[in-house]
């Protein structure tokens, strides 16, 4: 009697095994080694097959979610709030004030833009930066608003002023680099004399001298011996800069998102990265800082120790 029940139980053993009610060890006892391997592969194949054939309603809902949260995520990401909000408010405010004859020039992710102003002065914009100025006012006063980073080659003439969220720069005819983003402000003088006005304080810079103020800390005097900024030639260089600013620049150059919650964003980085290739850029920055990263999608990464 017991044998019969056993036989009946085992008679349709494959139906039990495919449901997961029969273990591999138990199956091995019933069939040959060759059959066992074949069934094992078949099970996997059927698993894949069922995944590829199943209705994709949930997939479509996921896609709809992604489409709608894509814009939300950008805005909710606290790292972007500071820079985008600040840049936009600064920008839209002044652009609106300037009136109909104002010119707005902006660069995109990973883009460098060369602009010639009405007086022949040249501006080279780094990625995700913008300038604006009033054509009418220009005749009397050379005044230009900047958000982001730009290198200026100012033709000799009347006072030339660059206004940024973090402070103003005034020159008569000279070459200088300004980096003005959310809480990073740096002016480097390459030629001539540059006056930096930070709230009420004024600083005069001569060639190779730089004024830097990060995150509201005390200002720093630095010296740079290069003749022009390296970013113009496709390489971004940093001297003791908190990693979070390097990360933001990577995002702007390569149009990616980097999640850095798990690491110390204030660790100082000295070094550079090339704009040509994101993988090599990551190697230059993260390997030096002993950090690993995970690729979530081709455009989003998560940093880890």
């Amino acid at each position, binding site marked *: 009697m017991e044998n019969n029940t056993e036989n009946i139980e085992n008679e349709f053993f494959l139906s039990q095994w495919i449901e997961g009610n029969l273990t591999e060890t138990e199956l091995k006892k019933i069939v040959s080694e060759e059959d066992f391997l074949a069934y094992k592969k078949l099970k996997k*194949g059927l698993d894949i097959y069922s995944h590829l054939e199943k209705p994709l309603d949930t997939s479509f809902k996921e896609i709809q979610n992604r489409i709608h949260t894509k814009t939300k995520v950008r805005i909710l990401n606290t790292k972007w709030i500071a820079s985008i909000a600040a840049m936009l408010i600064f920008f839209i405010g002044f652009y609106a004030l300037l009136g109909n004859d104002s010119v707005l020039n902006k660069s995109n992710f990973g883009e460098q833009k060369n602009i010639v102003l009405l007086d022949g002065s040249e501006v080279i914009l780094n990625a995700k930066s913008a300038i604006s100025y009033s054509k009418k006012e220009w005749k009397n006063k050379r005044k230009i608003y900047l958000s982001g980073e730009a290198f200026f080659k100012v033709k000799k003439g009347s006072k030339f002023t660059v206004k940024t969220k973090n402070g103003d720069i005034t020159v008569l005819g000279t070459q200088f680099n300004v980096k003005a983003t959310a809480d990073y402000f740096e002016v480097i003088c390459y030629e001539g004399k540059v006056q930096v006005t930070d709230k009420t304080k004024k600083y005069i810079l001569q060639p190779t001298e730089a004024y830097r103020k990060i995150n509201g800390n005390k200002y720093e005097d630095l010296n740079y011996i290069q003749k022009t900024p390296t970013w113009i030639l496709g390489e971004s260089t940093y001297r003791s800069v908190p990693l979070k600013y390097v990360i933001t620049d990577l995002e702007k150059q390569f149009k990616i998102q980097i999640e850095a919650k798990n690491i110390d964003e204030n660790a100082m980085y000295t070094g550079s990265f090339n704009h040509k290739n994101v993988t090599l850029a990551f190697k230059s920055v993260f390997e030096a800082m002993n950090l690993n990263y995970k690729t979530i999608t081709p455009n989003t990464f998560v940093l880890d120790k």
Partner: protein
Amino acid sequence: MNLDLKNICKPKIFEKVFKTHAKDLKRFLYFKFNDLETAEDVMQDAFVKLWKNCGDVSLEKVKSYLFTIGNNMFLNIKKHEQVVRKNKFRHTKNSTNESPEFLLIEKEYLEKIEKAIANLSEKQREVFLLSRIEKKKYKEIAAMLNISVKAVEKRMHNALLKMRKVM
């Protein structure tokens, strides 16, 4: 816009495009990555990208667009993984210890499965699909088809036996 009927930026049309091509795209990606999760993820990415550029893609070219995006994403990820592996940046999953070579499911194997399913008897195929695709339990299938659970099990067992013979 005169070509409203062919405008992918309309949600109904976009959904239709999805229903028409998603399965094939996912399958194509599965054989590239040999991983279901990544295939699903990249497939979704491709459609999100399509929506972003919906104004630039015509209905006639949409299939080729989707597959090109998918393939490019695959190439980017693989290129990236290669550099990463070379630089020992992180510990990547080695295919040999998680899925032995002989368990690798290639396109040809899957095609054999499909052929085998098509060659099952009506009764066997019915039970097989309800169980494997619809994920119904034998009890449920028995109730649906008005047969005994044993009968369901018998059909499933025989279906698998038959499939084993042709694989």
